Protein backbone atom coordinates (compact mmCIF):
# COMPACT_ATOMS: atom_id res chain seq x y z
CA UNK A 1 0.00 0.00 0.00
CA UNK A 2 2.84 2.36 0.92
CA UNK A 3 4.70 1.74 -2.34
CA UNK A 4 1.45 2.23 -4.25
CA UNK A 5 1.20 5.73 -2.71
CA UNK A 6 4.81 6.46 -3.66
CA UNK A 7 4.26 5.38 -7.26
CA UNK A 8 1.07 7.45 -7.53
CA UNK A 9 2.83 10.50 -6.14
CA UNK A 10 5.80 10.04 -8.48
CA UNK A 11 3.51 9.71 -11.47
CA UNK A 12 1.51 12.82 -10.49
CA UNK A 13 4.64 14.92 -9.97
CA UNK A 14 6.09 13.71 -13.27
CA UNK A 15 2.83 14.72 -14.98
CA UNK A 16 3.02 18.18 -13.39
CA UNK A 17 6.64 18.63 -14.45
CA UNK A 18 5.81 17.54 -18.02
CA UNK A 19 2.86 19.99 -18.18
CA UNK A 20 5.09 22.84 -17.01
CA UNK A 21 7.78 21.93 -19.53
CA UNK A 22 5.22 21.85 -22.34
CA UNK A 23 3.95 25.27 -21.28
CA UNK A 24 7.54 26.55 -21.25
CA UNK A 25 8.24 25.06 -24.70
CA UNK A 26 5.08 26.69 -26.05
CA UNK A 27 6.08 30.07 -24.63
CA UNK A 28 9.68 29.73 -25.83
CA UNK A 29 8.57 28.91 -29.37
CA UNK A 30 5.67 31.41 -29.31
CA UNK A 31 3.30 28.57 -30.28
CA UNK A 32 -0.17 29.67 -29.36
CA UNK A 33 -1.77 26.21 -29.61
CA UNK A 34 0.81 24.70 -27.28
CA UNK A 35 0.29 27.46 -24.71
CA UNK A 36 -3.49 27.02 -24.88
CA UNK A 37 -3.22 23.22 -24.51
CA UNK A 38 -0.91 23.45 -21.54
CA UNK A 39 -3.62 25.18 -19.48
CA UNK A 40 -5.69 22.00 -19.59
CA UNK A 41 -2.63 19.85 -18.90
CA UNK A 42 -1.74 21.96 -15.85
CA UNK A 43 -5.25 21.76 -14.44
CA UNK A 44 -5.27 17.97 -14.94
CA UNK A 45 -1.85 17.55 -13.32
CA UNK A 46 -2.87 19.58 -10.27
CA UNK A 47 -6.08 17.58 -9.90
CA UNK A 48 -4.25 14.26 -9.48
CA UNK A 49 -1.72 15.43 -6.87
CA UNK A 50 -2.37 13.54 -3.62
CA UNK A 51 -3.37 15.75 -0.72
CA UNK A 52 -2.51 13.41 2.14
CA UNK A 53 0.84 12.10 3.38
CA UNK A 54 2.07 8.60 2.73
CA UNK A 55 5.18 6.47 2.70
CA UNK A 56 7.53 7.47 -0.11
CA UNK A 57 10.72 5.78 1.10
CA UNK A 58 11.21 3.74 -2.09
CA UNK A 59 10.83 6.65 -4.47
CA UNK A 60 11.89 9.59 -2.29
CA UNK A 61 14.94 10.53 -4.40
CA UNK A 62 13.01 10.27 -7.67
CA UNK A 63 10.14 12.39 -6.34
CA UNK A 64 12.56 15.03 -5.02
CA UNK A 65 14.32 15.08 -8.39
CA UNK A 66 11.01 15.52 -10.24
CA UNK A 67 9.94 18.27 -7.81
CA UNK A 68 13.23 20.12 -8.36
CA UNK A 69 12.76 19.81 -12.13
CA UNK A 70 9.15 21.02 -11.81
CA UNK A 71 10.30 24.05 -9.83
CA UNK A 72 12.89 24.87 -12.46
CA UNK A 73 10.27 24.47 -15.23
CA UNK A 74 7.91 26.78 -13.33
CA UNK A 75 10.63 29.45 -13.04
CA UNK A 76 11.25 29.12 -16.77
CA UNK A 77 7.52 29.57 -17.53
CA UNK A 78 7.35 32.67 -15.34
CA UNK A 79 10.39 34.26 -16.95
CA UNK A 80 9.26 33.52 -20.48
CA UNK A 81 5.74 34.64 -19.64
CA UNK A 82 7.09 37.85 -18.13
CA UNK A 83 9.10 38.59 -21.26
CA UNK A 84 6.07 37.79 -23.45
CA UNK A 85 3.76 40.06 -21.44
CA UNK A 86 6.26 42.87 -21.58
CA UNK A 87 6.59 42.51 -25.36
CA UNK A 88 2.83 42.38 -25.86
CA UNK A 89 2.25 45.44 -23.67
CA UNK A 90 4.99 47.38 -25.44
CA UNK A 91 3.77 46.41 -28.91
CA UNK A 92 0.11 47.13 -28.22
CA UNK A 93 1.02 50.34 -26.43
CA UNK A 94 3.03 51.51 -29.42
CA UNK A 95 0.07 50.82 -31.69
CA UNK A 96 -2.23 52.70 -29.32
CA UNK A 97 -4.41 49.63 -28.79
CA UNK A 98 -3.30 48.53 -25.33
CA UNK A 99 -6.86 48.43 -24.03
CA UNK A 100 -8.55 47.89 -27.35
CA UNK A 101 -8.98 44.12 -27.08
CA UNK A 102 -11.16 42.29 -24.61
CA UNK A 103 -10.62 38.95 -22.94
CA UNK A 104 -12.30 37.35 -25.94
CA UNK A 105 -9.54 38.67 -28.16
CA UNK A 106 -12.09 40.75 -30.06
CA UNK A 107 -11.51 44.33 -30.93
CA UNK A 108 -13.36 47.05 -29.07
CA UNK A 109 -12.70 49.89 -31.47
CA UNK A 110 -14.23 52.58 -29.27
CA UNK A 111 -11.75 51.80 -26.53
CA UNK A 112 -8.88 52.88 -28.72
CA UNK A 113 -9.49 56.48 -29.62
CA UNK A 114 -5.78 57.19 -29.71
CA UNK A 115 -4.96 54.40 -32.15
CA UNK A 116 -2.61 55.65 -34.76
CA UNK A 117 -1.54 53.88 -37.94
CA UNK A 118 2.10 54.79 -37.67
CA UNK A 119 3.69 52.12 -39.81
CA UNK A 120 4.45 52.69 -43.46
Amino acid at each position, binding site marked *: MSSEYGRTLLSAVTQ*LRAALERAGDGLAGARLDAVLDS*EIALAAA*LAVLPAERGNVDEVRDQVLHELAQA*RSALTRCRRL*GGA*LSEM*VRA*SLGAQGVLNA*YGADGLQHANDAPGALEARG
Partner: protein
Amino acid sequence: MSDLFTSLSIAARALAAQQTGLDVVGQNIANVNTAGYARRQVNLAAVPPRDRFSAGGGVEVTSITSTRDALLERRLRLETPAEGREAALADSLSVVESALGDAGSSIDGNLTEFFDAWSTLAEDPTSATARQGVLIKGQALARGFNDMADGLESARRDADGNVRGLVDQIDELARQIASLNAAIGRSGGGSMALSFKDQQAEAIKQLSELIDVDAIENSTGGVDLSIANGRALVIGANAYSIDVTSDARGFAQLSSGGMQVTSEITGGRLGGMLHARDVVIPDYQDSLDGLAFALASQVNTQHAAGYDHSGTQGGAFFTPLASQAGAAAALQLDPTLAVDPGLVAAAGTSTGADNGNARALAELRNARVLDGGTATLTDGWARLTYRVGQDSSTAQAEQKNRQEIVSQIDALRESVSGVSLDEEAMMMMKFQRAYEANARYFTTVDTAIDTLMQMVVTG
Protein backbone atom coordinates in the same frame (compact mmCIF):
# COMPACT_ATOMS: atom_id res chain seq x y z
CA MET B 1 -3.08 60.71 -79.27
CA SER B 2 -2.39 62.29 -75.89
CA ASP B 3 -5.03 59.99 -74.34
CA LEU B 4 -3.28 56.94 -75.75
CA PHE B 5 0.07 58.31 -74.55
CA THR B 6 -1.35 58.86 -71.07
CA SER B 7 -2.74 55.34 -70.98
CA LEU B 8 0.60 53.91 -72.03
CA SER B 9 2.38 56.02 -69.38
CA ILE B 10 0.03 54.73 -66.70
CA ALA B 11 0.63 51.15 -67.80
CA ALA B 12 4.41 51.68 -67.93
CA ARG B 13 4.43 53.21 -64.44
CA ALA B 14 2.34 50.31 -63.13
CA LEU B 15 4.74 47.81 -64.71
CA ALA B 16 7.74 49.63 -63.24
CA ALA B 17 6.10 49.65 -59.81
CA GLN B 18 5.31 45.92 -60.01
CA GLN B 19 8.87 45.26 -61.25
CA THR B 20 10.22 47.09 -58.21
CA GLY B 21 7.92 44.96 -56.06
CA LEU B 22 9.30 41.79 -57.62
CA ASP B 23 12.86 43.03 -57.14
CA VAL B 24 12.17 43.64 -53.47
CA VAL B 25 10.58 40.20 -53.06
CA GLY B 26 13.69 38.70 -54.70
CA GLN B 27 15.89 40.73 -52.39
CA ASN B 28 13.93 39.51 -49.34
CA ILE B 29 14.18 35.87 -50.46
CA ALA B 30 17.88 36.15 -51.27
CA ASN B 31 18.64 37.60 -47.83
CA VAL B 32 16.51 35.26 -45.78
CA ASN B 33 19.63 33.98 -43.98
CA THR B 34 21.57 37.25 -43.93
CA ALA B 35 22.34 38.33 -40.38
CA GLY B 36 20.83 41.70 -39.55
CA TYR B 37 18.74 41.91 -42.72
CA ALA B 38 15.27 43.37 -42.18
CA ARG B 39 12.56 42.57 -44.74
CA ARG B 40 11.92 45.36 -47.25
CA GLN B 41 8.50 46.51 -48.31
CA VAL B 42 7.51 48.62 -51.28
CA ASN B 43 5.23 51.53 -50.53
CA LEU B 44 2.98 52.38 -53.46
CA ALA B 45 0.81 55.44 -53.94
CA ALA B 46 -1.78 56.36 -56.53
CA VAL B 47 -0.67 59.12 -58.87
CA PRO B 48 -3.31 61.86 -58.59
CA PRO B 49 -5.34 62.85 -61.70
CA ARG B 50 -4.11 65.81 -63.69
CA ASP B 51 -7.58 67.28 -64.05
CA ARG B 52 -11.15 66.51 -63.12
CA PHE B 53 -11.71 64.57 -66.32
CA SER B 54 -8.86 62.16 -65.68
CA ALA B 55 -9.27 58.87 -63.74
CA GLY B 56 -5.79 59.21 -62.27
CA GLY B 57 -2.16 58.70 -63.17
CA GLY B 58 -1.85 55.06 -62.12
CA VAL B 59 0.55 53.93 -59.45
CA GLU B 60 4.13 54.66 -58.47
CA VAL B 61 6.66 53.57 -55.88
CA THR B 62 6.99 56.22 -53.18
CA SER B 63 9.60 54.46 -51.06
CA ILE B 64 11.17 51.19 -50.03
CA THR B 65 11.24 50.77 -46.29
CA SER B 66 12.47 48.04 -44.00
CA THR B 67 10.17 46.33 -41.53
CA ARG B 68 12.57 46.71 -38.62
CA ASP B 69 10.61 46.56 -35.39
CA ALA B 70 12.23 49.02 -33.00
CA LEU B 71 10.51 47.55 -29.93
CA LEU B 72 11.60 43.99 -30.58
CA GLU B 73 15.10 45.12 -31.39
CA ARG B 74 15.27 47.12 -28.19
CA ARG B 75 14.12 44.11 -26.21
CA LEU B 76 16.75 41.99 -27.92
CA ARG B 77 19.36 44.59 -27.02
CA LEU B 78 18.31 44.26 -23.39
CA GLU B 79 18.39 40.47 -23.30
CA THR B 80 21.52 39.87 -25.37
CA PRO B 81 24.00 41.49 -22.92
CA ALA B 82 22.42 39.56 -20.05
CA GLU B 83 22.95 36.34 -21.97
CA GLY B 84 26.53 37.33 -22.82
CA ARG B 85 27.26 38.10 -19.17
CA GLU B 86 26.04 34.71 -17.97
CA ALA B 87 27.89 32.93 -20.79
CA ALA B 88 31.15 34.64 -19.80
CA LEU B 89 30.55 33.87 -16.14
CA ALA B 90 29.81 30.22 -16.95
CA ASP B 91 33.00 30.01 -19.07
CA SER B 92 35.11 31.50 -16.31
CA LEU B 93 33.57 29.32 -13.60
CA SER B 94 34.16 26.17 -15.63
CA VAL B 95 37.88 27.03 -15.50
CA VAL B 96 37.63 27.42 -11.70
CA GLU B 97 35.67 24.17 -11.40
CA SER B 98 38.35 22.20 -13.19
CA ALA B 99 41.04 23.87 -11.06
CA LEU B 100 39.28 22.60 -7.93
CA GLY B 101 39.73 19.01 -9.08
CA ASP B 102 37.62 15.94 -8.35
CA ALA B 103 36.12 15.19 -4.98
CA GLY B 104 38.46 13.05 -2.87
CA SER B 105 41.56 13.75 -4.93
CA SER B 106 42.02 17.42 -4.22
CA ILE B 107 42.51 19.40 -0.97
CA ASP B 108 39.94 17.13 0.70
CA GLY B 109 42.10 14.11 -0.15
CA ASN B 110 45.23 15.92 1.09
CA LEU B 111 43.48 16.78 4.39
CA THR B 112 42.36 13.18 4.91
CA GLU B 113 45.85 11.82 4.23
CA PHE B 114 47.42 14.44 6.50
CA PHE B 115 45.22 13.56 9.48
CA ASP B 116 45.56 9.83 8.70
CA ALA B 117 49.34 10.28 8.93
CA TRP B 118 48.91 11.71 12.46
CA SER B 119 46.73 8.71 13.37
CA THR B 120 49.44 6.36 12.08
CA LEU B 121 52.04 8.22 14.14
CA ALA B 122 49.77 7.99 17.20
CA GLU B 123 49.84 4.19 16.83
CA ASP B 124 53.66 4.17 16.93
CA PRO B 125 54.90 7.56 18.20
CA THR B 126 58.57 6.65 18.15
CA SER B 127 58.54 5.40 14.54
CA ALA B 128 60.87 7.44 12.33
CA THR B 129 58.89 6.32 9.26
CA ALA B 130 55.61 7.53 10.72
CA ARG B 131 57.22 10.88 11.64
CA GLN B 132 58.55 11.20 8.10
CA GLY B 133 55.05 10.30 6.83
CA VAL B 134 53.54 13.23 8.73
CA LEU B 135 56.05 15.59 7.14
CA ILE B 136 55.48 14.20 3.65
CA LYS B 137 51.69 14.52 3.95
CA GLY B 138 52.05 17.98 5.51
CA GLN B 139 54.18 19.04 2.55
CA ALA B 140 51.69 17.54 0.10
CA LEU B 141 48.84 19.40 1.82
CA ALA B 142 50.73 22.71 1.70
CA ARG B 143 51.52 22.13 -1.98
CA GLY B 144 47.85 21.31 -2.60
CA PHE B 145 46.90 24.72 -1.18
CA ASN B 146 49.69 26.44 -3.15
CA ASP B 147 48.56 24.80 -6.42
CA MET B 148 44.94 25.67 -5.74
CA ALA B 149 45.86 29.29 -5.02
CA ASP B 150 47.81 29.31 -8.31
CA GLY B 151 44.82 27.80 -10.13
CA LEU B 152 42.43 30.48 -8.85
CA GLU B 153 44.91 33.27 -9.58
CA SER B 154 45.42 31.86 -13.05
CA ALA B 155 41.63 31.76 -13.62
CA ARG B 156 41.55 35.41 -12.57
CA ARG B 157 44.38 36.26 -14.97
CA ASP B 158 42.54 34.39 -17.75
CA ALA B 159 39.46 36.50 -17.07
CA ASP B 160 41.64 39.61 -17.20
CA GLY B 161 43.11 38.51 -20.54
CA ASN B 162 39.59 38.08 -21.84
CA VAL B 163 38.64 41.56 -20.59
CA ARG B 164 41.47 43.08 -22.65
CA GLY B 165 40.51 41.07 -25.73
CA LEU B 166 36.85 42.04 -25.39
CA VAL B 167 37.70 45.74 -25.11
CA ASP B 168 39.58 45.47 -28.43
CA GLN B 169 36.56 43.84 -30.07
CA ILE B 170 34.23 46.50 -28.63
CA ASP B 171 36.44 49.31 -29.94
CA GLU B 172 36.54 47.70 -33.39
CA LEU B 173 32.75 47.34 -33.52
CA ALA B 174 32.28 50.92 -32.28
CA ARG B 175 34.49 52.18 -35.12
CA GLN B 176 32.50 50.08 -37.60
CA ILE B 177 29.18 51.47 -36.33
CA ALA B 178 30.50 55.04 -36.43
CA SER B 179 31.65 54.63 -40.02
CA LEU B 180 28.23 53.16 -40.93
CA ASN B 181 26.65 56.23 -39.31
CA ALA B 182 28.72 58.35 -41.67
CA ALA B 183 27.67 56.20 -44.65
CA ILE B 184 23.97 56.40 -43.67
CA GLY B 185 24.26 60.18 -43.39
CA ARG B 186 25.92 60.47 -46.80
CA SER B 187 23.43 58.16 -48.54
CA GLY B 188 20.51 60.48 -47.81
CA GLY B 189 17.96 57.67 -47.42
CA GLY B 190 16.92 55.10 -50.05
CA SER B 191 18.02 51.53 -50.59
CA MET B 192 21.69 52.14 -49.78
CA ALA B 193 20.77 53.58 -46.40
CA LEU B 194 18.66 50.49 -45.66
CA SER B 195 21.59 48.25 -46.52
CA PHE B 196 23.91 50.24 -44.22
CA LYS B 197 21.28 50.06 -41.47
CA ASP B 198 21.15 46.27 -41.80
CA GLN B 199 24.92 46.08 -41.41
CA GLN B 200 24.70 48.45 -38.47
CA ALA B 201 21.96 46.41 -36.79
CA GLU B 202 24.12 43.31 -37.03
CA ALA B 203 27.14 45.17 -35.63
CA ILE B 204 25.04 46.50 -32.72
CA LYS B 205 23.76 42.98 -32.04
CA GLN B 206 27.35 41.70 -31.88
CA LEU B 207 28.27 44.63 -29.65
CA SER B 208 25.33 43.88 -27.32
CA GLU B 209 26.73 40.42 -26.72
CA LEU B 210 29.95 42.03 -25.50
CA ILE B 211 28.67 44.97 -23.45
CA ASP B 212 25.33 46.54 -22.49
CA VAL B 213 24.71 49.52 -24.74
CA ASP B 214 22.00 52.15 -24.95
CA ALA B 215 21.09 53.06 -28.52
CA ILE B 216 19.32 56.21 -29.66
CA GLU B 217 18.51 56.96 -33.28
CA ASN B 218 20.15 60.21 -34.31
CA SER B 219 18.95 62.93 -36.67
CA THR B 220 20.77 61.50 -39.70
CA GLY B 221 19.09 58.10 -39.37
CA GLY B 222 22.12 56.45 -37.74
CA VAL B 223 22.49 55.36 -34.13
CA ASP B 224 24.32 56.90 -31.16
CA LEU B 225 25.53 54.47 -28.52
CA SER B 226 26.45 54.86 -24.88
CA ILE B 227 27.80 52.42 -22.31
CA ALA B 228 27.95 52.20 -18.51
CA ASN B 229 26.40 55.28 -16.90
CA GLY B 230 25.78 57.07 -20.19
CA ARG B 231 29.40 57.29 -21.36
CA ALA B 232 29.58 57.93 -25.09
CA LEU B 233 30.77 55.07 -27.27
CA VAL B 234 29.53 56.26 -30.67
CA ILE B 235 28.22 59.72 -31.47
CA GLY B 236 27.49 60.17 -35.14
CA ALA B 237 30.62 59.36 -37.13
CA ASN B 238 32.87 59.43 -34.02
CA ALA B 239 33.79 56.36 -31.99
CA TYR B 240 35.17 56.84 -28.46
CA SER B 241 37.48 54.04 -27.43
CA ILE B 242 37.57 52.43 -24.01
CA ASP B 243 41.02 53.04 -22.52
CA VAL B 244 42.81 50.27 -20.69
CA THR B 245 45.42 50.80 -17.97
CA SER B 246 46.87 48.27 -15.53
CA ASP B 247 46.47 48.57 -11.77
CA ALA B 248 49.18 47.69 -9.22
CA ARG B 249 48.42 43.96 -9.59
CA GLY B 250 48.45 44.14 -13.37
CA PHE B 251 44.69 43.89 -13.83
CA ALA B 252 43.05 45.94 -16.58
CA GLN B 253 41.16 49.05 -15.44
CA LEU B 254 38.81 50.60 -17.98
CA SER B 255 38.09 54.25 -18.53
CA SER B 256 36.05 56.29 -20.97
CA GLY B 257 36.63 59.99 -21.52
CA GLY B 258 39.05 59.98 -18.58
CA MET B 259 36.47 58.49 -16.16
CA GLN B 260 36.88 55.05 -14.57
CA VAL B 261 34.09 52.79 -15.81
CA THR B 262 35.27 49.33 -14.72
CA SER B 263 32.66 48.97 -11.99
CA GLU B 264 29.91 50.50 -14.14
CA ILE B 265 30.08 47.79 -16.80
CA THR B 266 27.81 44.99 -15.66
CA GLY B 267 26.37 43.45 -18.83
CA GLY B 268 27.60 41.50 -21.82
CA ARG B 269 30.59 39.20 -21.90
CA LEU B 270 32.75 42.06 -20.65
CA GLY B 271 30.49 42.57 -17.61
CA GLY B 272 30.54 38.81 -16.92
CA MET B 273 34.33 38.60 -17.15
CA LEU B 274 34.77 41.66 -14.91
CA HIS B 275 32.35 40.15 -12.37
CA ALA B 276 34.25 36.85 -12.41
CA ARG B 277 37.62 38.62 -12.12
CA ASP B 278 36.73 41.21 -9.47
CA VAL B 279 33.99 39.58 -7.39
CA VAL B 280 33.44 35.85 -7.82
CA ILE B 281 37.00 34.49 -8.01
CA PRO B 282 38.37 36.81 -5.26
CA ASP B 283 35.55 35.53 -3.07
CA TYR B 284 36.71 31.94 -3.64
CA GLN B 285 40.30 33.02 -2.99
CA ASP B 286 39.21 34.50 0.36
CA SER B 287 37.53 31.23 1.31
CA LEU B 288 40.59 29.20 0.32
CA ASP B 289 42.85 31.57 2.27
CA GLY B 290 40.52 31.29 5.27
CA LEU B 291 40.79 27.52 5.13
CA ALA B 292 44.61 27.58 4.84
CA PHE B 293 44.91 30.14 7.64
CA ALA B 294 42.68 28.12 9.99
CA LEU B 295 44.59 24.94 9.18
CA ALA B 296 47.99 26.56 9.86
CA SER B 297 46.78 28.23 13.08
CA GLN B 298 45.09 25.14 14.50
CA VAL B 299 47.91 22.73 13.62
CA ASN B 300 50.62 25.14 14.84
CA THR B 301 48.86 25.79 18.15
CA GLN B 302 48.38 22.08 18.81
CA HIS B 303 51.88 21.19 17.62
CA ALA B 304 53.42 23.80 19.93
CA ALA B 305 51.53 22.25 22.85
CA GLY B 306 53.36 18.90 22.40
CA TYR B 307 56.92 17.64 22.72
CA ASP B 308 59.33 16.31 20.13
CA HIS B 309 61.32 13.09 20.18
CA SER B 310 63.91 14.55 22.57
CA GLY B 311 61.27 15.94 24.95
CA THR B 312 61.64 19.55 23.82
CA GLN B 313 58.53 21.73 23.48
CA GLY B 314 57.22 21.66 19.88
CA GLY B 315 57.58 24.59 17.51
CA ALA B 316 55.54 25.64 14.50
CA PHE B 317 54.52 22.88 12.08
CA PHE B 318 53.71 25.27 9.22
CA THR B 319 55.54 28.56 8.78
CA PRO B 320 53.40 31.00 10.81
CA LEU B 321 51.20 33.20 8.61
CA ALA B 322 50.93 36.90 9.35
CA SER B 323 47.43 37.30 7.94
CA GLN B 324 44.68 35.43 6.15
CA ALA B 325 45.22 37.27 2.86
CA GLY B 326 47.43 35.14 0.63
CA ALA B 327 47.57 32.29 3.18
CA ALA B 328 46.92 29.49 0.66
CA ALA B 329 49.78 30.61 -1.60
CA ALA B 330 52.17 31.08 1.35
CA LEU B 331 51.41 27.87 3.22
CA GLN B 332 54.53 25.75 3.70
CA LEU B 333 56.10 23.40 6.20
CA ASP B 334 58.37 25.05 8.78
CA PRO B 335 61.85 24.76 7.11
CA THR B 336 63.61 23.58 10.27
CA LEU B 337 61.01 20.89 10.94
CA ALA B 338 60.93 19.82 7.29
CA VAL B 339 64.48 18.45 7.45
CA ASP B 340 64.31 16.86 10.92
CA PRO B 341 61.48 14.36 11.62
CA GLY B 342 62.68 14.17 15.23
CA LEU B 343 61.20 17.66 15.76
CA VAL B 344 57.66 16.41 15.12
CA ALA B 345 55.89 16.97 18.44
CA ALA B 346 53.95 13.72 18.78
CA ALA B 347 54.20 13.45 22.56
CA GLY B 348 51.87 15.06 25.06
CA THR B 349 54.49 15.01 27.82
CA SER B 350 58.14 15.94 28.09
CA THR B 351 59.16 12.27 28.05
CA GLY B 352 58.82 12.62 24.29
CA ALA B 353 57.70 9.03 23.90
CA ASP B 354 53.89 9.07 24.30
CA ASN B 355 51.28 9.71 21.57
CA GLY B 356 49.14 12.35 23.32
CA ASN B 357 49.80 15.19 20.93
CA ALA B 358 49.68 13.02 17.77
CA ARG B 359 46.19 11.90 18.83
CA ALA B 360 45.15 15.50 19.48
CA LEU B 361 46.45 16.53 16.06
CA ALA B 362 44.66 13.60 14.38
CA GLU B 363 41.48 14.69 16.17
CA LEU B 364 41.68 18.14 14.54
CA ARG B 365 39.97 16.57 11.52
CA ASN B 366 36.74 16.58 13.55
CA ALA B 367 37.24 19.98 15.17
CA ARG B 368 34.71 22.60 14.11
CA VAL B 369 37.07 25.49 13.62
CA LEU B 370 35.50 27.31 10.67
CA ASP B 371 32.49 29.54 10.07
CA GLY B 372 31.92 30.37 13.74
CA GLY B 373 32.51 26.82 14.96
CA THR B 374 30.05 25.17 12.58
CA ALA B 375 32.39 23.46 10.14
CA THR B 376 35.48 21.25 10.10
CA LEU B 377 38.32 21.92 7.68
CA THR B 378 36.96 19.23 5.34
CA ASP B 379 33.49 20.79 5.58
CA GLY B 380 35.05 24.14 4.67
CA TRP B 381 36.53 22.66 1.51
CA ALA B 382 33.25 20.91 0.65
CA ARG B 383 31.37 24.20 1.11
CA LEU B 384 33.77 25.98 -1.23
CA THR B 385 33.49 23.35 -3.98
CA TYR B 386 29.71 23.22 -3.57
CA ARG B 387 29.51 27.00 -3.91
CA VAL B 388 31.60 26.98 -7.08
CA GLY B 389 29.46 24.16 -8.53
CA GLN B 390 26.25 25.99 -7.66
CA ASP B 391 27.49 29.31 -9.06
CA SER B 392 28.56 27.58 -12.25
CA SER B 393 25.28 25.73 -12.78
CA THR B 394 23.29 28.88 -11.92
CA ALA B 395 25.25 30.83 -14.55
CA GLN B 396 24.64 28.08 -17.12
CA ALA B 397 20.92 27.95 -16.32
CA GLU B 398 20.70 31.76 -16.48
CA GLN B 399 22.43 31.76 -19.84
CA LYS B 400 20.01 29.12 -21.15
CA ASN B 401 17.03 31.12 -19.86
CA ARG B 402 18.26 34.33 -21.48
CA GLN B 403 18.98 32.51 -24.72
CA GLU B 404 15.46 31.16 -24.68
CA ILE B 405 13.97 34.61 -24.15
CA VAL B 406 16.00 35.92 -27.09
CA SER B 407 14.74 33.09 -29.31
CA GLN B 408 11.20 33.57 -27.96
CA ILE B 409 11.29 37.19 -29.15
CA ASP B 410 12.43 36.01 -32.58
CA ALA B 411 9.70 33.38 -32.66
CA LEU B 412 7.07 35.91 -31.63
CA ARG B 413 8.26 38.25 -34.34
CA GLU B 414 8.03 35.39 -36.87
CA SER B 415 4.57 34.35 -35.78
CA VAL B 416 3.06 37.84 -36.04
CA SER B 417 4.95 39.20 -39.03
CA GLY B 418 3.38 39.55 -42.44
CA VAL B 419 -0.11 40.15 -41.11
CA SER B 420 -2.03 43.36 -40.73
CA LEU B 421 -1.58 45.55 -37.69
CA ASP B 422 -5.03 44.58 -36.39
CA GLU B 423 -4.32 40.87 -36.79
CA GLU B 424 -0.90 41.32 -35.18
CA ALA B 425 -2.41 43.08 -32.18
CA MET B 426 -5.11 40.44 -31.84
CA MET B 427 -2.58 37.62 -32.10
CA MET B 428 -0.40 39.22 -29.45
CA MET B 429 -3.42 39.60 -27.19
CA LYS B 430 -4.29 35.92 -27.71
CA PHE B 431 -0.77 34.94 -26.64
CA GLN B 432 -1.13 37.15 -23.61
CA ARG B 433 -4.49 35.64 -22.64
CA ALA B 434 -3.21 32.10 -23.19
CA TYR B 435 -0.25 32.82 -20.91
CA GLU B 436 -2.49 34.39 -18.28
CA ALA B 437 -4.70 31.28 -18.33
CA ASN B 438 -1.59 29.21 -17.50
CA ALA B 439 -0.29 31.72 -15.00
CA ARG B 440 -3.49 31.40 -12.94
CA TYR B 441 -2.22 27.97 -11.90
CA PHE B 442 1.34 29.01 -11.13
CA THR B 443 0.75 30.13 -7.55
CA THR B 444 -1.09 26.87 -6.84
CA VAL B 445 1.70 24.88 -8.48
CA ASP B 446 4.30 26.79 -6.44
CA THR B 447 2.47 26.04 -3.18
CA ALA B 448 1.94 22.41 -4.17
CA ILE B 449 5.65 21.93 -4.89
CA ASP B 450 6.57 23.50 -1.52
CA THR B 451 4.08 21.31 0.35
CA LEU B 452 5.17 18.14 -1.44
CA MET B 453 8.87 18.91 -0.87
CA GLN B 454 8.13 19.31 2.81
CA MET B 455 6.07 16.11 2.90
CA VAL B 456 8.66 14.05 1.04
CA VAL B 457 11.68 15.35 2.96
CA THR B 458 10.13 14.91 6.41
CA GLY B 459 7.77 12.04 5.66
